């Protein structure tokens, strides 16, 4: 299929579904995140506390899943909004490429932050 149809390829039902699933998971992780970070400011804003938590590999796995899901959900959402407008196909290509590069780049940075411990 020609690159001209990028962005209108497929029905979008899978991205709709994954947006709902990632959103539901994020609700639960986000509630925990806010309680942990703001119920006691020391918990979220002290290097030693972060270091202690990061010693648990399951906590690290949860954080990596959090970063990946949140970035996916956010950037997929931006692409959803973009797709509601009609733009020239070269711009579609450029925007999609930027979103993918941003997602991979910041995902790698976020995972590096977690695996640093």
């Amino acid at each position, binding site marked *: 299929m020609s690159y001209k149809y990028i962005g209108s390829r497929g029905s979008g039902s899978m991205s709709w579904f994954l947006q*709902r699933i990632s959103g539901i998971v994020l609700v639960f992780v986000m509630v925990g995140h806010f309680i942990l970070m703001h119920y006691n400011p020391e918990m979220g804003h002290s290097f030693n506390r972060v270091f202690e938590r990061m010693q648990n590999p399951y906590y690290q796995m949860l954080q990596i899943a959090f970063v990946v899901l949140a970035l996916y959900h956010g950037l997929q959402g931006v692409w959803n909004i973009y797709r509601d407008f009609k733009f020239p196909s070269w711009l579609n290509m450029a925007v999609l490429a930027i979103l993918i590069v941003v997602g991979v780049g910041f995902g790698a940075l976020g995972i590096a932050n977690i695996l640093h411990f």
Partner: protein
Amino acid sequence: MYQKSPTQEWTSNVVRYKKFSGSWAWLLHRITGLGLTAYILVHINTLASLQEGPEAFNAKMQVFMQPHWIFAAWILFGLVLYHTLNGIRIVIIDFGKGAKYHKQLLYGAVVIGLIVFLWMGYIMFFGHAEYDFLSMIVTSYN
């Protein structure tokens, strides 16, 4: 016959478009979503100071413990809260029978959201004995 310019046409469409509660919910969901996506990139970038060691990270976090940054975090929490509650509403509409009572769901989300928002504000500003932000604000203006 009088012909509207594209700008006039766009403006009159926007003004004329009836924004019911569902439209506002949809629009706010998009705006908060864009804001939160921008924020998570900044957030990941800020946390990169974890890799530079305790001094760099703690120094950065001390900046965000200042009252006006706590206020910014509270507003950010408001965006997250709205996006979360309306997201739950969307899931109920899409996967359940929420389309029949989507307005009631929105009103419920607004009421719950306001209560949780004020509660979180209380916790963030007054909930920590060791971080008395009220007196920090008072002393910063003296």
